[in-house]
């Protein structure tokens, strides 16, 4: 039977809150002086007496201490007694402090057509200093997200990541689903606002590959200030009807982009005229699912060309 035993009101508390602990020395603790003065030590701080020490009916001694503001996220509280010309640690308790999780924010998702998974990410919120589990929860809702149908397997992110991928087999494409993030630790639980989306409406499209067409002069009369281009849609997104826009800019300081909108997603021969002959032009293209809802792809890498 050990000599001393610490009990703590709440082992894990909110940072800055008070905590009360008591240390009881059992009478059977033969080696000790009759009524030893029980001392406390937080981490490797000074030994300090408790707020009060009293005699319990069964002959044991109990000291109680209240730490007004715990500001260590993790600390050890030891109970000691003087012994010979030193001290003896009789018991030690672990104190943890932190915050309940704030609501995760900025939840956004993209459908990745290469891995065929819905990848969501979020802001976890301020540090809680406590082990906190984040879970991406979702359920299917075929109508406008008001009614929950079968829920989907919880998506648990890799350690400390604020992103999670829902595999294709858990997705019902072309139907709405509701997603949110739940954060949980010892001190509480919180949830992000809910997202309602059809995975196919948040497809991450890649831009087409823009290519210069070398039109042999014989075939087509050489018009000055023109360029011939072609592009093909990004293969994995080929089945998606898209609309594209082209922008071009002479490589001169201070010039702006000129935009050509409502272009098809595939073009074998596109003639672009009205360009100055001298400078090299930078051209880029991007596409968006249309007429169905979608997200713009990024701009394609710049293509440098000199007009005829």
């Amino acid at each position, binding site marked *: 039977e050990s000599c001393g035993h610490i009990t703590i009101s709440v082992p894990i508390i909110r940072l800055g809150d008070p905590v009360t602990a008591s240390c009881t020395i059992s009478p059977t603790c033969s080696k000790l002086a009759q009524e030893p003065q029980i001392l406390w030590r937080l981490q490797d701080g000074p030994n300090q007496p408790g707020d009060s020490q009293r005699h319990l009916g069964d002959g044991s001694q109990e000291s109680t201490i209240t730490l007004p503001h715990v500001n260590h996220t993790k600390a050890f509280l030891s109970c000691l007694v003087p012994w010979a010309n030193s001290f003896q640690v009789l018991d030690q308790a672990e104190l943890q402090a932190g915050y309940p999780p704030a609501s995760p924010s900025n939840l956004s998702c993209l459908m990745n057509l290469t891995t065929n998974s819905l990848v969501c990410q979020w802001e976890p919120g301020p540090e809680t200093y406590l082990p906190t589990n984040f879970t991406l929860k979702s359920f299917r809702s075929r109508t406008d997200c008001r009614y929950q149908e079968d829920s989907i397997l919880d998506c648990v992110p890799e350690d400390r990541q604020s992103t999670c991928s829902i595999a294709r087999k858990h997705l019902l494409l*072309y*139907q709405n689903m509701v997603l949110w993030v739940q954060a949980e630790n010892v001190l509480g639980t919180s949830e992000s606002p809910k997202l309602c989306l059809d995975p196919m409406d948040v497809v991450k499209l890649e831009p087409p590959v823009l290519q210069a067409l070398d039109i042999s002069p014989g075939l087509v009369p050489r018009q000055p200030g023109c360029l011939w281009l072609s592009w093909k849609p990004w293969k994995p997104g080929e*089945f*998606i009807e898209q609309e594209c826009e082209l922008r071009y800019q002479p490589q001169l300081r201070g010039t702006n982009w000129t935009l050509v909108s409502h272009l098809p997603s595939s073009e074998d021969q596109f003639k672009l005229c009205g360009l100055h002959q001298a400078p090299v032009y930078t051209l880029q293209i991007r596409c968006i699912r249309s007429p*169905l809802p979608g997200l713009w792809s990024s701009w394609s890498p710049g293509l440098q060309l000199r007009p005829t």
Partner: protein
Amino acid sequence: PPSLPWPRSFLLKSLEQVRKIQTRNSELLEQLCATYKLCHPEELVLLGHSLGIPKAPLSHCSSQALQLTKCLHQLHSGLFLYGGLLQALAGISPEVAPTLDMLQLDVANFATTIWQQMETLGVAPTAQPTQSTLPTFTSAFQRRAGGVLAASHLQSFLETAHCALNHWV
């Protein structure tokens, strides 16, 4: 053009799903050809008869004789049938399995889109269809040949569906 029988977003989504399945399905056919040299479905007709590989009708979806509700029912039943057939091909081979899994999911999701549209129009059958008896494959070859036949039947089914839906967009 004639007034739309179905909401435009349903038509556009369905067309996109048809194209998605067609792309995936031709990928499956290409893989079966490249891996097993089974490149000519017409050389497997006899085997198809003996295995009992079915073809799903789309007679009510032709532009000449379109009957909306019956067309939706045929679309859904056909997708349900081919979904079951693709399921029977499970374990066909490691090379083809990923494409087959994705194809099955795309077909099942398209069937749900059709079913939900029938519900919205109030013409959905009272209960989901039950799968008719599917062929059993007794050898790896039969499973691969069954895959080629099922995929080629699905391809022509999708072709007809695409024409019908495209007619209205």
